[in-house]
């Protein structure tokens, strides 16, 4: 399990160009964000131009990984060891972050222009930059300190972004999120404190070698687990998520649901695989909660009247799929085949969901923006007037439903296969129920949109490209289903 996270020594040293690419990947979003705060872009074109180097850095890193396999960086500053690694998984996640981040950034100018967001809009850019940089850092970092820094940076910036709309519900929800996120990271920190106190080091690779099962590891795992579960909105600690998304700006919600909560989950899995490699029950607790999450989130989304709540609640359920896979990834006596399947399925599901959810938020945002209504009933007749937005929503929801040929389907296929091999029938049932529930709420929304009988008022025209950006993301999620082989191959690569 440890090697899957790339916690071993690399064969090659990174080249100079790789260094630069790394620097660009980590720093450029931040810099560009600050820059954009000064000259807030009104059109998508400058944003597109500016994001080219960011994407380029990701591609360079990908190429570097393909050439040299695992890459590591280590620095020591004032007695503090900082280390980064670049393996297949982190390259993938990094690219995903960059693509979704760039898409959100491209989407933003149009959105801001149309929705008259007020003076706070300027702040969006730097916060976005911070979030993206911090996310990139989280995928790469291999010591607990860096992870903590990145986590906090990301959390604070995310809270800031989410509250920019300045409405009262947004502030109430944001305040709750802020406090919970801070407390969550303090809980995480407490866990880190135990680790540091007992083993005296923070680098994951070293810890992976020295840690052995014992009370300290368990307590640390429990604390870290609880803290990160809170931040990752895992059931039953998810309740802050929906109100936050409901009132936030669309690109922000997209970024947040697609990436930010995933970062905490990523850390959780990574740290638990170090701390609890052989535990039986803890992953199962998560899995059981995951089953509940699938049902609960599905029901929430099904019964809601608000489009954004629907999208946000579906995140809860989708996280449930990931949680259900925990016992296949962690724990004793898992055969290599189901573990490999579950591992691939887990990340494919995560990526598919990230792209699809971002696309879905954008599509939902487009619909709300165009109709001026945020309820499902307000969508009546949109199938005629806003077919593209609806199509994007549809393609994205195919991924969420896990219907072929989307990434969600392929991921579900692999997870199901792993579960069947390990005879976890409850998880199978949960996964299948999840499909049906997802279909139920997605098509409830479509049912409203296909209604032709309702009277129709004027629609606000959308900025060019807003739908196309969402469509691109949705199609990526879609294509990941059939073209899953390459990314999954990448995750295999670099194994010792």
């Amino acid at each position, binding site marked *: 399990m440890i090697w899957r996270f790339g916690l071993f020594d690399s064969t090659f040293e990174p080249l100079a160009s790789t260094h630069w690419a790394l620097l660009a990947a980590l720093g450029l979003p931040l810099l560009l964000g600050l820059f954009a705060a000064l000259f807030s872009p009104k059109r998508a074109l400058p944003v597109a131009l500016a994001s080219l180097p960011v994407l380029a850095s990701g591609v360079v890193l990908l190429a570097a990984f393909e050439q040299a396999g695992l890459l590591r960086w280590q620095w020591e500053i004032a007695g503090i060891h900082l280390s980064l690694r670049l393996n297949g998984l982190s390259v993938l996640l990094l690219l995903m972050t960059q693509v979704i981040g760039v898409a959100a950034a491209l989407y933003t100018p149009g959105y801001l222009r149309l929705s008259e967001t007020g003076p706070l809009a300027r702040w969006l850019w730097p916060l976005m930059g911070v979030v993206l940089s911090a996310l990139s850092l989280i995928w790469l970092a291999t010591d607990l300190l860096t992870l903590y820094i990145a986590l906090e940076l990301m959390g604070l910036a995310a809270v800031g972004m989410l509250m920019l709309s300045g409405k009262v519900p947004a502030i109430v929800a944001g305040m*709750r999120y802020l*406090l*919970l996120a801070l*407390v*969550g990271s303090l*809980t995480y920190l407490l866990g880190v404190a135990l680790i540091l106190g007992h083993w005296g080091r923070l680098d994951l690779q070293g810890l992976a070698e020295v840690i052995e*099962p*014992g*009370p300290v590891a*368990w*307590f640390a*795992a*429990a*604390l870290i*687990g*609880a*803290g990160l*579960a*809170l931040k990752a909105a895992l059931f*039953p*600690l*998810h*309740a*802050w998520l*929906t*109100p936050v998304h409901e009132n936030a700006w669309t690109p922000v919600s997209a970024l947040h649901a697609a990436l930010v909560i995933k970062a905490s989950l990523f850390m959780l899995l990574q740290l638990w695989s170090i701390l*609890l490699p052989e*535990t*039986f*029950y*803890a992953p199962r*607790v998560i899995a059981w909660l995951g089953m509940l999450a699938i049902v*609960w989130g599905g*029901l*929430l989304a*099904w*019964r809601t009247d608000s489009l954004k709540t629907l999208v946000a609640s579906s995140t809860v359920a989708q996280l449930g799929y990931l949680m259900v896979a925990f016992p296949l990834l962690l724990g004793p006596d898992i055969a290599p085949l189901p573990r490999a399947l579950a591992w691939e399925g887990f990340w494919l599901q995560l990526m598919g969901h990230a792209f699809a959810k971002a696309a879905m938020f954008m599509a939902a945002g487009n619909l709300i923006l165009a109709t001026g209504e945020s309820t499902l009933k307000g969508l009546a007749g949109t199938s005629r007037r806003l077919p593209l937005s609806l199509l994007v929503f549809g393609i994205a929801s195919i991924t969420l439903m896990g219907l072929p040929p989307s990434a969600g389907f392929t991921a579900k296929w692999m997870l199901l296969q792993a579960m069947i091999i390990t005879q976890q029938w409850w998880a199978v049932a949960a996964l299948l129920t999840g499909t049906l529930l997802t279909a139920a709420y997605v098509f409830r929304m479509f049912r409203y949109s296909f209604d032709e009988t309702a009277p129709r008022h004027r629609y606000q025209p959308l900025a060019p490209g807003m739908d196309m950006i969402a469509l691109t993301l949705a199609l990526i999620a879609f294509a990941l289903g059939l073209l899953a082989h390459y990314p999954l191959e990448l995750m295999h690569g670099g194994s010792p």
Partner: protein
Amino acid sequence: MMTLLLALALLWPLGVAGYTLWNAYRRPATQRGYFSLLWLSAVWPALLLAYAGEAHWTINAWMLGGEWELNSLSRPWLAFTALLWGLAAFHAKGYFAAEQAKAQAGDQDAQRRLLRLALLWPLTLLGNVLLIIAQDIASFYLGFALMTFAAYALVVHSGSDEARLGAKAYLILAVVGEGLILGGFLWAAGEADTLTLQGVREGILVAEHGSWMAALLCLGFGVKAGVIGLHVWLPLAHPVAPAPASAVLSGAMIKAGLLGWISVLPLGSEQVSEPLAQFGNTMLIAGLAAAFGAALYGVFQRHPKAVLAYSSISQMGMMTALVAMGLVAPEVWPLLWPGLVLFAAHHALAKGSLFMGTSISEHLPRWPLPLIWALLALPGISLAGAIGAGMVSKWGVKSPLYEMHHESLIKLLSWAAVGTAALVSVALWRQWQQRHKGGSNPEQWGAWLVAIVAALLTPLWLPLPAGSIEMPPMKEWLGIVWPFPVGVLFAAIGWLLTRPLKGKTLPAGDLWWLYAGVVSAMLVPIQAFGHGCGRLKSASVVTAQKAEETLMGHITRLLSGESWLRHHTSGLMMVLAVLLAALLMWEGQR
């Protein structure tokens, strides 16, 4: 050359139908003639084909594989069928002249009816021709079905209530019959893995359940042939159908059922199994029962055509009995069948002319009445076997039976002929009662006269194998002729006896009313059951909806737990941490 003729025989009626349709759309109604020369010629190529000699065709592309043949059986069959169709067509031209005039005067209803008839007549004919030449199951079934369903238009022509009832009875029984035939064919062909009628015959002979297959097929064809029990459509449909339609219905199409039997039953085969012979006996009894029962019932009918219909049933009963002999006493069959064919052919034309005669008696030409009635009676007398072809055909079936010593059957058949004679005389009497003035068209009586002549002279033109039919020797004449006077006598006595009844008669269609009663009685519980199911369904829908509502209520209430979760998130986080820690410790300490 033969092939060309065959193609013509089959395509010509189709072309005629197409032309009729085209004509109907192209010509204005006022100038439209429905019974043109072309229409009359629909059957001529088929008639020509019958005399062109024997031939055999195999067409692989045709349906399941076409096997068509003109052999010693199908040639005479085709000949008399085609002839009757041709004559009936002529007759129809005259018969419908008045209606056509009405149509040209702008009566839309008449236009519609005539068009329908003119269109479906050639199609019915086509089916009839096809089934005669077909030697493979699919073609045969196709011909049979085409004829059956297209003839619906012939029966329903007038559109009156009685016509609709008759047509309904016809159609219902036809559907039942088609189902039985299909089942029988499937069974027999499936067992024998064959696609030809020859194969079916052989299959039935050797199959374990051969008698059941035979029974299915016989009942299926029996609907057409008016086997007792399934005959009820005949007396209902015939009186209401136009005279030419009745003529072909009773003359040609009814024989299709007979041909079906001959085609599928392993008649005259040496290795007839015990059950099959048993079945033959049953069939024999059924045939005789029909022969006598129909005669008894028929004499009490009012409508001359209904009487004639019962006469047909009676005659077909006799033929059924003769066919059954092919199973009961196979050795007699090779000698018997030419006689049977002759019998059928003669009956076809005689019955045809009798039916045409009904139209003559309704529109009497300005001839002396005795002459007319003499002419009307001629085919009937012949049918009873007293003169002409009737006598020859009777001898044709009698002599082989004599040879093989089946005297009892001969006796029974003779008594059946008494019934025939009685029926014919009653029919003539009824015609006399219901005669009408009003001239007939030349086509009408011309066709009728030709039919009478053809009926009387059947053995002369029927292309039977040479030497298979001979005139009865003089000493046997008495034995053949006696039923006729006896029958007339019986009829007269019967009339005298039933005079006190004051013209009260039994309804046509006898068992139909029983069936209708039984079926409608059976439908009551079925309908009740259906209603019950419907109620059950709506009740369950209501219950399901209620359950869904309740469930939704529960879910909504459950989901309000979301805000509880929201307010206790931090507490839950603490719980989770403590729980995880406790769990991990517990597991670790175990």
